Protein backbone atom coordinates (compact mmCIF):
# COMPACT_ATOMS: atom_id res chain seq x y z
CA UNK A 1 0.00 0.00 0.00
CA UNK A 2 1.45 3.39 -1.01
CA UNK A 3 0.53 6.54 0.90
CA UNK A 4 3.21 8.78 -0.61
CA UNK A 5 2.37 11.81 -2.73
CA UNK A 6 4.43 14.40 -4.61
CA UNK A 7 4.21 18.18 -4.50
CA UNK A 8 6.33 19.88 -7.18
CA UNK A 9 8.87 17.06 -7.14
CA UNK A 10 8.99 16.87 -3.33
CA UNK A 11 7.95 13.48 -1.97
CA UNK A 12 5.72 13.38 1.11
CA UNK A 13 5.53 10.00 2.87
CA UNK A 14 1.80 10.61 3.27
CA UNK A 15 -0.54 13.47 2.36
CA UNK A 16 -1.21 14.65 5.94
CA UNK A 17 0.17 18.09 6.89
CA UNK A 18 -0.87 20.06 10.00
CA UNK A 19 -2.11 23.40 8.66
CA UNK A 20 -0.55 26.78 9.29
CA UNK A 21 -1.71 28.34 12.54
CA UNK A 22 -2.77 25.06 14.11
CA UNK A 23 0.58 23.61 15.16
CA UNK A 24 2.65 26.71 16.00
CA UNK A 25 6.16 25.96 14.77
CA UNK A 26 5.79 22.22 15.27
CA UNK A 27 7.01 21.86 18.84
CA UNK A 28 3.55 21.91 20.40
CA UNK A 29 2.67 18.58 18.79
CA UNK A 30 5.85 16.83 19.98
CA UNK A 31 4.50 15.82 23.41
CA UNK A 32 1.73 13.85 21.70
CA UNK A 33 3.54 11.83 19.00
CA UNK A 34 6.68 11.61 16.87
CA UNK A 35 6.11 14.43 14.37
CA UNK A 36 8.34 12.67 11.84
CA UNK A 37 5.35 10.49 10.93
CA UNK A 38 3.74 13.54 9.29
CA UNK A 39 3.69 14.15 5.55
CA UNK A 40 4.97 17.66 6.23
CA UNK A 41 4.41 20.65 8.47
CA UNK A 42 2.97 24.08 7.60
CA UNK A 43 4.39 26.73 9.93
CA UNK A 44 2.55 29.58 11.61
CA UNK A 45 2.00 32.46 9.18
CA UNK A 46 4.85 34.93 9.41
CA UNK A 47 5.34 38.53 8.38
CA UNK A 48 8.35 40.76 7.77
CA UNK A 49 8.02 42.43 11.19
CA UNK A 50 7.17 40.61 14.44
CA UNK A 51 3.48 40.88 15.37
CA UNK A 52 1.52 40.53 18.60
CA UNK A 53 -1.67 39.95 16.64
CA UNK A 54 -5.15 41.03 17.66
CA UNK A 55 -6.41 41.76 21.15
CA UNK A 56 -8.16 39.04 23.17
CA UNK A 57 -10.61 37.29 22.99
CA UNK A 58 -9.36 35.78 19.73
CA UNK A 59 -11.61 32.74 19.51
CA UNK A 60 -15.30 31.90 19.57
CA UNK A 61 -17.09 28.61 19.28
CA UNK A 62 -19.56 27.77 16.54
CA UNK A 63 -21.64 24.77 15.53
CA UNK A 64 -19.14 22.17 14.36
CA UNK A 65 -16.32 24.64 14.29
CA UNK A 66 -14.73 27.79 15.61
CA UNK A 67 -13.88 31.36 14.73
CA UNK A 68 -10.40 32.76 15.24
CA UNK A 69 -9.00 36.24 14.94
CA UNK A 70 -5.45 35.58 16.13
CA UNK A 71 -4.18 38.09 13.57
CA UNK A 72 -0.87 36.57 12.50
CA UNK A 73 0.98 36.63 15.80
CA UNK A 74 4.55 35.72 14.84
CA UNK A 75 8.17 36.53 15.72
CA UNK A 76 8.98 37.94 12.26
CA UNK A 77 10.29 36.14 9.18
CA UNK A 78 13.95 36.73 10.10
CA UNK A 79 13.57 34.85 13.39
CA UNK A 80 11.68 32.08 11.61
CA UNK A 81 14.40 31.71 8.95
CA UNK A 82 17.40 32.14 11.24
CA UNK A 83 16.39 30.35 14.41
CA UNK A 84 13.04 28.58 14.39
CA UNK A 85 13.25 26.53 11.21
CA UNK A 86 16.91 25.47 11.69
CA UNK A 87 16.05 24.32 15.24
CA UNK A 88 12.99 22.41 14.02
CA UNK A 89 14.93 20.82 11.15
CA UNK A 90 17.54 19.36 13.50
CA UNK A 91 15.25 16.46 14.22
CA UNK A 92 12.30 16.99 11.87
CA UNK A 93 13.09 15.47 8.50
CA UNK A 94 9.86 15.93 6.56
CA UNK A 95 9.06 18.80 4.17
CA UNK A 96 8.51 22.14 5.88
CA UNK A 97 6.06 24.62 4.37
CA UNK A 98 6.85 28.18 5.44
CA UNK A 99 3.71 30.33 5.44
CA UNK A 100 4.35 33.97 4.51
CA UNK A 101 1.95 36.89 4.80
CA UNK A 102 2.22 40.64 4.47
CA UNK A 103 0.59 44.03 4.15
CA UNK A 104 2.07 45.20 0.86
CA UNK A 105 3.60 43.72 -2.26
CA UNK A 106 7.03 44.93 -1.14
CA UNK A 107 6.63 43.21 2.21
CA UNK A 108 5.63 39.89 0.64
CA UNK A 109 8.64 40.07 -1.67
CA UNK A 110 11.09 40.92 1.14
CA UNK A 111 9.78 38.10 3.30
CA UNK A 112 10.10 35.68 0.38
CA UNK A 113 13.69 36.80 -0.22
CA UNK A 114 14.52 35.97 3.38
CA UNK A 115 12.69 32.67 3.72
CA UNK A 116 13.84 31.27 0.39
CA UNK A 117 17.40 31.30 1.76
CA UNK A 118 16.39 28.96 4.56
CA UNK A 119 17.67 25.54 3.47
CA UNK A 120 15.25 23.51 5.54
CA UNK A 121 12.17 25.08 3.95
CA UNK A 122 10.78 22.93 1.13
CA UNK A 123 7.78 24.96 0.03
CA UNK A 124 6.82 28.59 0.50
CA UNK A 125 3.11 29.01 1.11
CA UNK A 126 1.99 32.52 0.27
CA UNK A 127 -0.87 33.53 2.53
CA UNK A 128 -2.92 36.06 0.59
CA UNK A 129 -6.05 34.98 2.40
CA UNK A 130 -5.85 35.88 6.08
CA UNK A 131 -9.19 37.46 7.05
CA UNK A 132 -7.88 38.80 10.35
CA UNK A 133 -5.52 41.62 9.49
CA UNK A 134 -6.47 45.04 8.21
CA UNK A 135 -5.04 46.43 5.01
CA UNK A 136 -3.51 43.16 4.01
CA UNK A 137 -3.89 39.45 3.94
CA UNK A 138 -7.15 38.55 2.33
CA UNK A 139 -7.40 41.74 0.32
CA UNK A 140 -4.74 40.41 -2.06
CA UNK A 141 -6.52 37.11 -2.48
CA UNK A 142 -9.97 38.45 -3.31
CA UNK A 143 -8.91 40.12 -6.55
CA UNK A 144 -7.43 37.97 -9.32
CA UNK A 145 -5.24 40.76 -10.62
CA UNK A 146 -3.82 41.71 -7.20
CA UNK A 147 -3.16 38.04 -6.46
CA UNK A 148 -1.34 37.61 -9.75
CA UNK A 149 0.84 40.66 -9.09
CA UNK A 150 1.93 39.37 -5.70
CA UNK A 151 2.58 35.88 -7.03
CA UNK A 152 4.63 37.11 -9.99
CA UNK A 153 6.72 39.41 -7.81
CA UNK A 154 7.38 36.69 -5.22
CA UNK A 155 8.02 34.02 -7.83
CA UNK A 156 10.80 36.22 -9.23
CA UNK A 157 12.74 36.09 -5.94
CA UNK A 158 12.18 32.54 -4.67
CA UNK A 159 14.15 29.42 -5.49
CA UNK A 160 11.64 27.01 -3.97
CA UNK A 161 8.17 25.92 -5.03
CA UNK A 162 5.69 28.73 -4.38
CA UNK A 163 2.20 27.70 -3.25
CA UNK A 164 -0.56 30.24 -2.86
CA UNK A 165 -3.13 29.89 -0.09
CA UNK A 166 -6.47 31.14 -1.32
CA UNK A 167 -9.51 32.51 0.42
CA UNK A 168 -13.01 31.14 -0.16
CA UNK A 169 -14.41 34.63 0.48
CA UNK A 170 -14.68 35.37 -3.25
CA UNK A 171 -17.31 35.06 -5.95
CA UNK A 172 -15.21 32.84 -8.19
CA UNK A 173 -12.27 31.03 -6.63
CA UNK A 174 -11.34 29.32 -9.90
CA UNK A 175 -10.70 32.70 -11.49
CA UNK A 176 -8.25 33.70 -8.71
CA UNK A 177 -6.64 30.25 -8.94
CA UNK A 178 -6.14 30.58 -12.68
CA UNK A 179 -4.60 34.03 -12.27
CA UNK A 180 -2.12 32.63 -9.70
CA UNK A 181 -1.21 29.75 -12.01
CA UNK A 182 -0.65 32.12 -14.92
CA UNK A 183 1.55 34.31 -12.69
CA UNK A 184 3.82 31.37 -11.93
CA UNK A 185 2.43 29.70 -8.81
CA UNK A 186 3.72 26.13 -8.43
CA UNK A 187 0.68 25.02 -6.46
CA UNK A 188 -2.32 26.16 -4.45
CA UNK A 189 -3.51 25.61 -0.87
CA UNK A 190 -7.22 25.96 -0.42
CA UNK A 191 -9.09 27.07 1.52
CA UNK A 192 -8.30 29.56 4.26
CA UNK A 193 -11.09 30.36 6.75
CA UNK A 194 -14.48 31.85 5.94
CA UNK A 195 -15.23 35.24 7.45
CA UNK A 196 -17.71 34.94 10.31
CA UNK A 197 -19.06 36.58 13.48
CA UNK A 198 -20.49 35.62 16.89
CA UNK A 199 -22.32 37.93 19.30
CA UNK A 200 -22.48 37.37 23.06
CA UNK A 201 -26.12 37.53 24.10
CA UNK A 202 -25.48 38.88 27.59
CA UNK A 203 -23.11 41.69 26.65
CA UNK A 204 -24.81 42.18 23.24
CA UNK A 205 -21.36 42.66 21.75
CA UNK A 206 -19.25 40.57 19.37
CA UNK A 207 -17.48 37.77 21.25
CA UNK A 208 -14.08 38.54 19.77
CA UNK A 209 -12.17 41.78 20.26
CA UNK A 210 -11.55 41.99 16.51
CA UNK A 211 -15.29 41.35 16.02
CA UNK A 212 -15.07 39.22 12.85
CA UNK A 213 -12.89 36.17 12.44
CA UNK A 214 -12.21 33.12 10.32
CA UNK A 215 -14.48 30.09 10.51
CA UNK A 216 -12.80 26.69 10.49
CA UNK A 217 -13.62 23.15 11.55
CA UNK A 218 -15.92 20.44 10.15
CA UNK A 219 -18.59 23.07 9.36
CA UNK A 220 -16.53 24.29 6.38
CA UNK A 221 -15.46 20.91 4.96
CA UNK A 222 -18.10 20.84 2.19
CA UNK A 223 -17.18 24.39 1.18
CA UNK A 224 -13.49 23.48 1.03
CA UNK A 225 -14.28 20.37 -0.95
CA UNK A 226 -16.34 22.38 -3.42
CA UNK A 227 -13.49 24.90 -3.87
CA UNK A 228 -10.95 22.12 -4.47
CA UNK A 229 -13.37 20.55 -6.96
CA UNK A 230 -13.84 23.80 -8.90
CA UNK A 231 -10.17 24.75 -8.88
CA UNK A 232 -9.06 21.25 -9.94
CA UNK A 233 -11.09 21.72 -13.10
CA UNK A 234 -9.53 25.11 -13.75
CA UNK A 235 -5.78 24.59 -13.21
CA UNK A 236 -2.99 22.08 -13.87
CA UNK A 237 -0.84 22.81 -10.78
CA UNK A 238 -1.17 20.64 -7.64
CA UNK A 239 -3.67 21.51 -4.92
CA UNK A 240 -3.30 21.08 -1.17
CA UNK A 241 -6.82 20.73 0.18
CA UNK A 242 -7.76 22.01 3.62
CA UNK A 243 -10.76 23.19 5.58
CA UNK A 244 -12.45 21.03 8.19
CA UNK A 245 -10.49 17.87 7.45
CA UNK A 246 -10.77 15.68 10.56
CA UNK A 247 -10.51 12.03 9.51
CA UNK A 248 -8.89 9.62 7.05
CA UNK A 249 -12.17 9.53 5.15
CA UNK A 250 -12.07 13.34 4.80
CA UNK A 251 -8.53 13.03 3.39
CA UNK A 252 -9.69 10.54 0.78
CA UNK A 253 -12.72 12.66 -0.12
CA UNK A 254 -10.49 15.73 -0.50
CA UNK A 255 -8.14 13.80 -2.79
CA UNK A 256 -11.05 12.52 -4.87
CA UNK A 257 -12.07 16.17 -5.35
CA UNK A 258 -8.59 16.93 -6.69
CA UNK A 259 -6.19 17.51 -3.79
CA UNK A 260 -2.70 16.01 -4.02
CA UNK A 261 -2.06 16.56 -0.31
CA UNK A 262 -4.23 17.63 2.59
CA UNK A 263 -3.78 19.94 5.55
CA UNK A 264 -5.47 19.44 8.89
CA UNK A 265 -6.26 22.61 10.81
CA UNK A 266 -8.75 23.17 13.62
CA UNK A 267 -9.04 19.43 14.34
CA UNK A 268 -5.55 19.57 15.92
CA UNK A 269 -6.81 22.07 18.46
CA UNK A 270 -9.51 19.78 19.81
CA UNK A 271 -7.58 16.55 19.37
CA UNK A 272 -3.80 17.02 19.28
CA UNK A 273 -3.48 13.36 18.21
CA UNK A 274 -5.66 13.79 15.13
CA UNK A 275 -2.91 13.80 12.47
CA UNK A 276 -1.39 10.62 13.87
CA UNK A 277 -4.82 9.01 14.04
CA UNK A 278 -5.54 9.96 10.43
CA UNK A 279 -2.19 8.56 9.25
CA UNK A 280 -2.78 5.36 11.26
CA UNK A 281 -6.32 5.01 9.88
CA UNK A 282 -5.48 5.65 6.21
CA UNK A 283 -4.25 2.12 5.29
CA UNK A 284 -7.40 0.47 6.65
CA UNK A 285 -9.64 2.99 4.87
CA UNK A 286 -7.68 2.46 1.65
CA UNK A 287 -8.03 -1.28 1.95
CA UNK A 288 -11.76 -0.97 2.63
CA UNK A 289 -12.14 1.26 -0.45
CA UNK A 290 -9.86 -0.83 -2.67
CA UNK A 291 -7.18 1.87 -3.02
CA UNK A 292 -3.64 0.56 -3.60
CA UNK A 293 -1.87 3.87 -4.26
CA UNK A 294 -3.22 7.14 -2.87
CA UNK A 295 -2.01 9.07 -5.93
CA UNK A 296 -4.36 6.97 -8.07
CA UNK A 297 -7.41 8.71 -6.59
CA UNK A 298 -6.38 12.37 -7.02
CA UNK A 299 -9.27 14.04 -8.85
CA UNK A 300 -10.94 10.66 -9.16
CA UNK A 301 -14.42 12.07 -8.63
CA UNK A 302 -14.20 14.12 -11.83
CA UNK A 303 -14.11 11.15 -14.21
Amino acid at each position, binding site marked *: MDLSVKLSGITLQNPVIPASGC*CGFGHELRPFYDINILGGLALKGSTLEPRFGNELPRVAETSAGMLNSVGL*QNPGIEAVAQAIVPALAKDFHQPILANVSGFSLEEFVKSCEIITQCDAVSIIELNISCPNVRGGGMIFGTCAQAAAEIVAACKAVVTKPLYVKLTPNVTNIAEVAKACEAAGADGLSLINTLLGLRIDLKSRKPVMANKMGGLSGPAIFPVALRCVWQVYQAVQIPIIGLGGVSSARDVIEMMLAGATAVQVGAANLVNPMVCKEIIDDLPAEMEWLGIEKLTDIIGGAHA
Partner: protein
Amino acid sequence: MQILNFTITENTQLTRDIWRVRLHNPQAERPKTGQFVNLQIDGHYLRRPISICDWEDGTYTLIYRVVGQGTTALAQLQPGQVINMLTGLGNGFTIMPAQRPLLIGGGVGVPPLYYLAKELVKAGQRPTMLLGFAREEDVLFQDEKEWDVKVVIGGYVTDGLPAHYDAIYACGPEPMLRGIDRTAKALAPGHMQLSFEARMACGFGACMACTCRTQQGYKRICKDGPILTREEIQWT
Protein backbone atom coordinates in the same frame (compact mmCIF):
# COMPACT_ATOMS: atom_id res chain seq x y z
CA MET B 1 0.16 15.97 29.13
CA GLN B 2 -2.23 13.07 28.62
CA ILE B 3 -5.39 12.56 26.58
CA LEU B 4 -7.59 10.06 28.36
CA ASN B 5 -11.20 9.06 28.76
CA PHE B 6 -12.46 9.55 32.30
CA THR B 7 -15.49 7.99 33.96
CA ILE B 8 -17.60 10.39 35.96
CA THR B 9 -17.96 9.15 39.53
CA GLU B 10 -19.90 12.15 40.87
CA ASN B 11 -21.47 15.35 39.50
CA THR B 12 -23.09 17.42 42.25
CA GLN B 13 -24.58 20.87 42.54
CA LEU B 14 -22.89 22.78 45.38
CA THR B 15 -24.48 26.23 45.17
CA ARG B 16 -26.88 28.01 42.83
CA ASP B 17 -24.50 27.85 39.86
CA ILE B 18 -21.43 25.97 41.12
CA TRP B 19 -20.99 22.23 40.50
CA ARG B 20 -18.43 19.63 41.47
CA VAL B 21 -17.55 16.78 39.13
CA ARG B 22 -15.27 13.88 39.98
CA LEU B 23 -13.70 11.88 37.16
CA HIS B 24 -11.57 8.76 37.32
CA ASN B 25 -9.01 7.03 35.15
CA PRO B 26 -6.46 4.75 36.84
CA GLN B 27 -3.83 5.85 34.29
CA ALA B 28 -4.19 9.56 35.06
CA GLU B 29 -0.91 11.09 36.17
CA ARG B 30 -0.68 13.44 39.14
CA PRO B 31 -1.02 17.05 37.93
CA LYS B 32 0.90 20.00 39.32
CA THR B 33 -1.10 22.44 41.43
CA GLY B 34 -2.38 25.32 39.34
CA GLN B 35 -2.53 23.25 36.16
CA PHE B 36 -5.82 22.75 34.32
CA VAL B 37 -7.64 20.23 32.15
CA ASN B 38 -9.43 20.78 28.84
CA LEU B 39 -12.51 18.63 28.64
CA GLN B 40 -14.58 17.60 25.69
CA ILE B 41 -18.35 17.90 25.95
CA ASP B 42 -20.53 16.15 23.37
CA GLY B 43 -22.05 18.56 20.88
CA HIS B 44 -19.50 21.29 21.55
CA TYR B 45 -16.57 21.72 19.20
CA LEU B 46 -14.02 23.33 21.50
CA ARG B 47 -12.91 21.81 24.77
CA ARG B 48 -13.66 23.57 28.07
CA PRO B 49 -10.67 24.53 30.23
CA ILE B 50 -11.27 23.96 33.97
CA SER B 51 -8.86 24.32 36.87
CA ILE B 52 -8.03 21.39 39.13
CA CYS B 53 -9.49 21.45 42.63
CA ASP B 54 -8.04 18.12 43.72
CA TRP B 55 -6.45 14.89 42.53
CA GLU B 56 -6.18 11.62 44.33
CA ASP B 57 -5.27 8.19 42.91
CA GLY B 58 -6.39 8.94 39.38
CA THR B 59 -9.51 10.86 40.40
CA TYR B 60 -9.81 14.50 39.48
CA THR B 61 -12.10 16.87 41.35
CA LEU B 62 -13.16 19.87 39.29
CA ILE B 63 -15.37 22.68 40.52
CA TYR B 64 -17.01 24.70 37.79
CA ARG B 65 -19.54 27.45 37.35
CA VAL B 66 -22.41 26.90 34.93
CA VAL B 67 -22.04 29.92 32.66
CA GLY B 68 -23.04 28.81 29.17
CA GLN B 69 -24.23 25.96 27.02
CA GLY B 70 -21.10 23.87 27.48
CA THR B 71 -21.08 23.93 31.26
CA THR B 72 -24.89 23.46 31.29
CA ALA B 73 -24.36 20.25 29.31
CA LEU B 74 -21.53 19.24 31.65
CA ALA B 75 -23.83 19.66 34.67
CA GLN B 76 -26.30 17.22 33.13
CA LEU B 77 -23.79 14.36 32.86
CA GLN B 78 -24.36 11.42 35.18
CA PRO B 79 -22.02 9.12 37.09
CA GLY B 80 -20.85 6.32 34.80
CA GLN B 81 -20.71 8.53 31.71
CA VAL B 82 -17.36 8.95 30.01
CA ILE B 83 -15.71 12.15 28.85
CA ASN B 84 -12.36 12.84 27.24
CA MET B 85 -9.90 15.17 28.93
CA LEU B 86 -6.59 16.66 27.94
CA THR B 87 -4.71 16.88 31.23
CA GLY B 88 -1.52 18.32 32.67
CA LEU B 89 -1.95 21.70 30.96
CA GLY B 90 -0.19 24.89 31.94
CA ASN B 91 2.90 25.64 34.02
CA GLY B 92 1.28 25.32 37.46
CA PHE B 93 2.25 27.00 40.71
CA THR B 94 5.85 26.78 41.88
CA ILE B 95 5.90 26.14 45.60
CA MET B 96 8.11 28.75 47.24
CA PRO B 97 9.80 28.48 50.63
CA ALA B 98 7.64 30.59 52.96
CA GLN B 99 6.65 30.84 56.61
CA ARG B 100 3.25 32.40 55.99
CA PRO B 101 1.96 31.64 52.49
CA LEU B 102 -1.25 33.48 51.67
CA LEU B 103 -3.67 31.99 49.14
CA ILE B 104 -6.18 34.47 47.72
CA GLY B 105 -9.13 33.33 45.65
CA GLY B 106 -12.24 34.83 44.16
CA GLY B 107 -15.28 32.94 42.87
CA VAL B 108 -14.30 29.95 40.74
CA GLY B 109 -10.69 31.03 41.28
CA VAL B 110 -11.01 29.44 44.72
CA PRO B 111 -11.04 25.70 43.83
CA PRO B 112 -7.45 25.42 42.50
CA LEU B 113 -6.22 26.91 45.78
CA TYR B 114 -7.61 23.88 47.63
CA TYR B 115 -5.20 21.54 45.80
CA LEU B 116 -2.38 24.03 46.31
CA ALA B 117 -3.11 24.32 50.06
CA LYS B 118 -2.97 20.53 50.39
CA GLU B 119 0.42 20.45 48.68
CA LEU B 120 1.72 23.28 50.85
CA VAL B 121 0.66 21.38 53.96
CA LYS B 122 2.48 18.31 52.63
CA ALA B 123 5.56 20.52 52.19
CA GLY B 124 5.33 21.44 55.87
CA GLN B 125 3.87 24.92 55.38
CA ARG B 126 0.81 26.39 57.12
CA PRO B 127 -1.14 28.36 54.52
CA THR B 128 -3.80 30.98 55.11
CA MET B 129 -6.68 31.21 52.65
CA LEU B 130 -8.35 34.53 51.95
CA LEU B 131 -11.44 33.86 49.89
CA GLY B 132 -13.84 36.29 48.26
CA PHE B 133 -17.39 35.38 47.26
CA ALA B 134 -20.19 37.50 45.86
CA ARG B 135 -22.89 36.11 48.18
CA GLU B 136 -23.12 34.15 51.42
CA GLU B 137 -24.59 31.13 49.60
CA ASP B 138 -21.61 30.97 47.20
CA VAL B 139 -19.09 30.16 49.93
CA LEU B 140 -16.88 27.10 49.41
CA PHE B 141 -14.19 25.55 51.63
CA GLN B 142 -15.03 27.40 54.81
CA ASP B 143 -14.44 24.53 57.21
CA GLU B 144 -10.95 23.34 56.47
CA LYS B 145 -8.90 21.89 59.33
CA GLU B 146 -5.35 21.98 58.04
CA TRP B 147 -5.19 25.65 57.24
CA ASP B 148 -6.77 28.96 58.24
CA VAL B 149 -9.61 30.35 56.15
CA LYS B 150 -10.83 33.91 56.08
CA VAL B 151 -13.90 34.70 53.96
CA VAL B 152 -14.93 38.07 52.52
CA ILE B 153 -18.50 38.36 51.21
CA GLY B 154 -18.97 41.05 48.57
CA GLY B 155 -16.55 43.97 48.49
CA TYR B 156 -12.83 43.67 47.90
CA VAL B 157 -10.96 40.58 48.97
CA THR B 158 -7.89 42.77 49.43
CA ASP B 159 -9.66 44.49 52.35
CA GLY B 160 -8.99 41.26 54.23
CA LEU B 161 -5.22 41.20 53.64
CA PRO B 162 -3.54 40.02 56.86
CA ALA B 163 -0.57 41.86 58.37
CA HIS B 164 1.90 39.05 57.91
CA TYR B 165 2.60 37.00 54.80
CA ASP B 166 5.73 36.22 52.81
CA ALA B 167 4.25 34.61 49.69
CA ILE B 168 1.02 35.09 47.76
CA TYR B 169 -0.69 32.69 45.39
CA ALA B 170 -3.88 34.02 43.83
CA CYS B 171 -6.54 32.97 41.37
CA GLY B 172 -9.64 34.87 40.35
CA PRO B 173 -10.99 37.57 38.05
CA GLU B 174 -8.43 39.96 36.59
CA PRO B 175 -9.61 43.05 38.54
CA MET B 176 -9.02 41.08 41.75
CA LEU B 177 -5.52 40.05 40.65
CA ARG B 178 -4.76 43.64 39.71
CA GLY B 179 -5.98 44.77 43.14
CA ILE B 180 -3.74 42.24 44.88
CA ASP B 181 -0.69 43.35 42.91
CA ARG B 182 -1.45 46.99 43.78
CA THR B 183 -2.20 46.41 47.45
CA ALA B 184 0.19 43.69 48.57
CA LYS B 185 3.55 44.58 50.08
CA ALA B 186 6.90 43.88 48.45
CA LEU B 187 7.74 40.19 48.32
CA ALA B 188 10.81 38.23 47.28
CA PRO B 189 11.01 37.52 43.52
CA GLY B 190 8.65 34.73 42.49
CA HIS B 191 6.77 34.97 45.77
CA MET B 192 3.67 36.43 44.16
CA GLN B 193 2.16 34.03 41.67
CA LEU B 194 -1.10 34.95 39.97
CA SER B 195 -3.22 32.59 37.91
CA PHE B 196 -4.84 34.14 34.84
CA GLU B 197 -7.85 33.20 32.74
CA ALA B 198 -8.32 33.63 29.00
CA ARG B 199 -10.70 32.39 26.37
CA MET B 200 -8.67 29.66 24.70
CA ALA B 201 -9.02 27.00 22.05
CA CYS B 202 -6.34 24.29 22.15
CA GLY B 203 -5.00 24.61 25.72
CA PHE B 204 -1.55 23.30 24.75
CA GLY B 205 0.09 26.28 23.05
CA ALA B 206 -0.62 25.62 19.38
CA CYS B 207 -3.24 28.18 18.36
CA MET B 208 -1.99 31.44 19.95
CA ALA B 209 -5.55 32.39 20.94
CA CYS B 210 -4.66 33.31 24.54
CA THR B 211 -1.42 35.25 24.14
CA CYS B 212 -0.75 38.15 26.51
CA ARG B 213 2.00 40.72 26.77
CA THR B 214 4.40 40.30 29.70
CA GLN B 215 7.61 41.93 30.90
CA GLN B 216 9.36 38.98 29.27
CA GLY B 217 7.65 39.11 25.89
CA TYR B 218 4.50 37.44 24.66
CA LYS B 219 3.27 34.47 26.65
CA ARG B 220 0.48 32.00 26.03
CA ILE B 221 -1.80 31.80 29.07
CA CYS B 222 -2.43 28.10 28.35
CA LYS B 223 1.18 26.98 27.97
CA ASP B 224 3.55 29.57 29.47
CA GLY B 225 0.88 30.39 32.09
CA PRO B 226 -1.71 30.35 33.52
CA ILE B 227 0.55 31.28 36.43
CA LEU B 228 2.61 34.45 36.02
CA THR B 229 4.84 35.94 38.69
CA ARG B 230 4.49 39.56 39.76
CA GLU B 231 7.79 40.28 37.98
CA GLU B 232 6.45 38.97 34.66
CA ILE B 233 3.08 40.71 34.61
CA GLN B 234 2.44 43.65 32.35
CA TRP B 235 -0.98 45.16 33.14
CA THR B 236 -2.73 46.72 30.17
